[in-house]
């Protein structure tokens, strides 16, 4: 007969949790795990590294500085801040086919889009088309919130104010003829920016929404007339504006300007001579900035970046080397098993 012993209520419960006996996996850094682990990681990294490196090497990049500090450059004439509507031309040639689709970027250096005061100087609600914020922009926008006559600035803030406003035209010189290389400016911004984050007010015509507001101080055109060729590409959802408003992480950055994938250029830029016509407006010399244009194609890993491949290779090799070292140490010293 089993006697049921009554337990005192004070007696602690006998559970795995209260008695700290929960079943558990107790891994330790034993040679059997660490050394093969290092070899495996090393080999995997080397594999990935090789792949990345080869991919990156195949990506073509053409980068041309057009700041104009160089006397020989055509853009040198535009460096004078008094020159208005300056247009300069850059000539370059491509030896082999520049595989398409080719992306055309403009780049800036020494430009602090990631500065905190610069970054916060915008009004998300206004850019989302909130008319209340048209009349009374967020205080974050200071000092580009109101103009000198206390009219609200739309779009307000430093970021919008400093919109990049150089424009480019690319010609292929074929037998002395200048053939325009068509640019595709659609969908160069993030889908979410275009469709969700930025929005024009529901006012037609768009211009009416901006009554009583002024355009940013540095702008020559109002935000609703940024693109004459395509009326739908105006206001806050103008692609160039969107690209600019997504501020860069680092002081040297490039931003997508156009895509080259149309007409004769679907396969890329054929070898030949090209001429780039730049309307030079954006001042960068005051802060020792540089301006450049970049032609590049992409792969599965994005744009050209040798670093990642090399890093993978180096670390993979280090792992393998370390595993050998560890093996030697293990064989030589071994874990002293006696107490």
């Amino acid at each position, binding site marked *: 007969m089993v006697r049921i012993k009554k337990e005192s209520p004070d007696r602690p419960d006998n559970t795995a949790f209260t008695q700290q006996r929960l079943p558990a996996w107790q891994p330790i850094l034993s040679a059997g795990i660490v050394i093969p682990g290092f070899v495996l*990681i090393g080999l995997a990294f080397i594999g990935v590294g090789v792949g990345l490196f080869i991919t990156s090497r195949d990506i073509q990049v053409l980068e041309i500085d057009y700041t104009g500090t160089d006397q020989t450059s055509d853009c040198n004439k535009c460096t004078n801040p008094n020159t208005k509507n300056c247009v300069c031309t850059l000539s370059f040639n491509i030896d082999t086919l520049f595989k398409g689709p080719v992306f055309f970027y403009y780049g800036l250096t020494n430009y602090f889009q990631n500065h*905190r005061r610069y970054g916060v100087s915008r009004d998300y609600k206004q850019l989302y088309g909130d008319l209340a914020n048209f009349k009374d922009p967020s205080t974050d926008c200071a000092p580009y919130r109101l103009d000198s006559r206390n009219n609200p600035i739309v779009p307000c803030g430093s970021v919008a104010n400093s919109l990049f406003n150089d424009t480019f035209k690319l010609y292929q010189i074929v037998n002395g003829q200048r053939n325009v290389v068509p640019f595709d400016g659609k969908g160069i911004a993030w889908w979410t920016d275009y469709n969700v984050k930025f929005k024009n007010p529901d006012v037609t015509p768009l211009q009416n929404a901006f009554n009583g507001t002024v355009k940013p101080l540095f702008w020559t055109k109002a935000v609703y007339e940024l693109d004459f060729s395509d009326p739908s590409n105006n206001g806050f959802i103008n692609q160039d504006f969107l690209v600019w408003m997504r501020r860069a992480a680092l002081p040297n950055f490039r931003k997508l300007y156009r895509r080259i994938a149309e007409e004769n250029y679907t396969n890329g830029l054929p070898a030949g001579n090209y001429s780039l016509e730049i309307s030079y407006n954006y001042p960068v010399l005051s802060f020792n900035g540089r301006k450049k244009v970049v032609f590049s194609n992409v792969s599965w890993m994005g744009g050209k970046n040798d670093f990642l491949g090399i890093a993978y290779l180096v670390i993979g090799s280090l792992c393998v080397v370390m595993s050998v070292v560890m093996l030697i140490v293990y064989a030589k010293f071994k874990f002293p098993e006696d107490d």
Partner: protein
Amino acid sequence: MSFFGLDCVTKTERELERKLRANDREYNRSFKYAKNAIKTSKYNVFTFLPLNLFEQFQRIANAYFLVLLVLQVIPQISSLSWFTTVVPLIFVLTVTAAKDATDDLNRHRSDKRVNNRKVQVLIDRKLRSEKWMDVQVGDIIKLENNQFVTADLLLLSSSEPLNLVYIETAELDGETNLKVRQALTVTGDLGDDVEKLADFDGEVRCEAPNNRLDRFAGTLTFAGQKYALDNEKILLRGCTLRNTEWCFGLVLFAGQETKLMQNCGKSTFKRTSVDRLMNVLVLCIFGFLVCMCTVLAIGNYIWEINKGSNFTVFLPREDGNTAGFSSFLTFWSYVIILNTVVPISLYVSVEIIRLGNSFYIDWDRKMYHSHSDTPAEARTTTLNEELGQIKYIFSDKTGTLTQNIMIFNKCSINGRSYGDVYDYTGQRLEISEQKDSVDFSFNPLADPRFVFYDHSLVEAVKLENPEVHAFFRLLALCHTVMAGEKKEGDDQGELYYQAQSPDEGALVTAARNFGFVFRSRTPDSISIVEMGKQRSYELLAILDFNNVRKRMSVIVRNPEGKLSLYCKGADTIVYERLHQSCSKLMDVTTEHLNEFAGEGLRTLALAYKDLDEEYFNGWKQRHHEASTELDDRESKLDALYEEIEKDLLLLGATAIEDKLQDGVPQTIEQLSKADIKVWVLTGDKQETAENIGYSCNLLREEMNEVFIVSGSSSDDVRQELRNAQTSMKPSAAENSVFLPEEKGEGVKPMKDEVVNGEYGLVINGHSLAFALERSTELDFLRTACMCKSVICCRVTPLQKAQVVELVKKYKQAVTLAIGDGANDVSMIKAAHIGVGISGQEGMQAVLSSDYSFAQFHFLQRLLLVHGRWSYLRMCKFLRYFFYKNFTFTFVHFWFAFFCGFSAQTVYDEWFITLYNLMYTALPVLGMSLFDQDVNDVWSFQHPQLYVPGQLNLYFSKKAFFKCAIHSCYSSLVLFFIPYAALQDTVRDDGKDVANYQSFALLTQTSLLFAVSIQLGLEMSYWTAVNTFFVLGSLVMYFVVTFTMYSDGMFLLLPSAFPFIGSARNSLNQPNVWLTIVLTSILCVLPVVTYRFLLIQLCPTINDKVMFKVRQAKATLPPPPRRTRIRRSSTRRSGYAFSHAQGYGELVTSGRFLRRPAIRSAGFPQVGRTTTGFSPMGRSAGYSPTGRPQNLKVSDVEVTSLQMYRTITDPPLSHT
């Protein structure tokens, strides 16, 4: 303390003398003496909030967050939202306050319970039942048997003859022996006559409240006469009245002013060493934070000058903001951003971890004592990790190491040993509870609680073996025990013994059960029931015990008229006085004695002799002359005793077990393997303490030497200590010259010294008083620390605390004090950790302790398992926590160099808010609540695992520095790998991915992966819960991130969730994922390599054990050894250790007896001038100076002990 405490403070004109008048409340009130209410609580309803907040803001971190909060409200500076600080701060304050409140509530409750006890007070000429708290100084109160003494009283009268009362002082000094107090005759005559008592208007003048338990001085003026008052007339609060129907007392000191309360050290707020280290580190971190911010502010200044001033086209400065001002603002902005180096969640988490680990202690079934139904209890929840760092344990003896029960275990009669049980093959069996014990039903007077297992002895008694009969007859006759019959309860009429020492009680009880029942005594007769027959022996003389004689004898005449002398005493002493004819028996008995001593039993040899009538009459005559002699009486008496106690015939020997608590020797052995030093601080006599020291493995035969320090002056003690030092370490003498040159400022910690061999130290109370003097304390400490174990005997509660304080002061070590009685309270409070033994009568020790449980041997589980784990977990937690937050924060620092030092955060603000609260909180908590390197069985197997804790190896400044370096590395990887990987790159459709938001997302994801993997490396015990926490937190991160970067959230609050789409647009890129993998792997690889190599090249004890566990995984770990520790001891104990001199006299004087005292029956009062008697109980010998009689006692002890040592260490074969 409180507002109510204030009036105490203002009344600081120290009371020099106390004046009071009995039954005159008006008069006594004018002195504003303390009432009898006690208060141990800290707060009341009104003072709680301000006091508690004040205490909490004393924590640097809390104050810091308050400052931070102020900073965040300033718009120019604010780089983070204000509520990110407020919410955690309020949470922390509330949780802590709630905990403090419950703690204090418990204290209030226990105060209330004590304060509301009832006692009878004489008010308006009537006895009224009043609450304790309402009792005032000058009241006369009536106490009844077994009641606690309400306050410090002057004994007025009692129910017993000669106005004696018996008290038990266990609560005060831990001794369970009864003590006697006697009232003045003049007050004793008041009796229990309420009218007379109400008329009593005696005035008392006495000393001011103090903490000396052994001393009292005052005068009573009554009816124009002055009477001197001393300690013998005082009942102290904390005592219990025993064997006394009633007594009346006059309240002298009440409440906080009682000696008991004065002896309780101040309760201080205990902090763990990790806490203190953390505070130091937090300060360092603040310093470091300021440095970082300064660097960044300077950076900002330079940037503003070089670049910012040119960049004003696109980023104009606000009016009047110069570069200098900008850098000033930047400084504060970075203070806010980088505050995450000391996140407030650190403190919350630490509290939670401690709470969790405290619960584990409460829940532990292996620390639950089913016999007394007491679970272990963590009464303080803030000290857990300290349990893993204990270096010194200070233990009480009685009730802690021993059960204070004496058991008649074995005996040797006429060359035959009884007490062991053998099986058929002659193998000795282990005596356990299940064995069937001897049936004593043949004897109606047997004590049912007495158990004996050897049936052969009872057979021998039944067979009327003459030696066996003589043996028990001796035990029934030769003692000073009083017999009585119970008056109440179920077992009414049952015989019970009131023994002066528990040893003697055990012996008489044994005789009782074996058929020689001691029934009663008168001053000149003893009546016993011998095998059912009542016989009365005439008691002719008691040759009393003292420390030098180490024996006692009685001379009796049996009913047949034969004269006999019965003697029992220390074997060595008795052996010297035996007749030659016993030499054979002596040899056999010696063997048995050695065997008994080897088992740690206390032994006595018994002998008798028949006396010649004529000779005795002559002797008696001479004795009478000697005892009336005026000078040199003592030595003449001794000579007489010596003369008659010779040519004795050996009967045999007894062995008594001073029953240790379960598993004490094993526990002490384990603890010493864990490199913990155990010091026993006891109020008991030196011999007792020493004997227990041996039986519980604290002192060992194999020890090179056990030093006894018993000097009676400061110089003597110092010399003895120095001598001990030199013999332990010959080079010690030179060093000691440099030791005491500590000049007040800054206490230099004393280093541990290595000595060759094992040593023990025994020091007694009054030597300790000298040893604790400023000039000697370092010598004492040094000697004590060189010894393996230390026993201090006859120490007062305050000395216990002083010893603890001394070690705390000079040794950078964590101390633990364990005890069960009120006399241990001060030491429990003084030590870093106080442990109370619960489940017994007194609760004082438990109430002031930090941890409590029922058995001493649970201590090893508390330390070696719970303590070790708690420490390990806490350290792992801290190391990891600092790592993860430093890494998190340092990334901001690197980013600063690329964003114009503009205090731009690297991460999304939401990530910053949730990082500590959500993404990393649970995994690290999981680790700190569940982690264990090896399980409890292995922890016991390898007590050495405990040592790293004592050396602070797991978390120290060095470990912290390593963490910082590691974080620095990780943060560099975490910033620069994404930096390089995203530089100029684009998505696979050519669109932007090198923007700020994608970069933030990439970095924070990499960070989270890196710290999670790092956590995985730290964690050595992956339960399902841990795994769930780690993986769950990662999943949670993605869920939260995608939710917050979703369209819906943006539409809800556009300005709060500007990161819309970042997750979708970045995390679908292979190169982003490749970067995350690269970054997180790169953060961890060097750590793995380093650790692996470290394990291979110089493995720690943990690594070794873990490796062993792994190897033994297939085979279960061996069960913990349960072998009984057998010591091959040749050491034998002396006579009844807790015995005191003077009782023989009392017995013969008849003053103990409940009948009108008969003066000088048989023997006249010998040699004492005092009325009453002054037993050499522990109340004697406390005060170090000015008490000549004490000094004399100590002399006696010294010689006796030396004698004892030289004789008892013969080179006998090891059994």
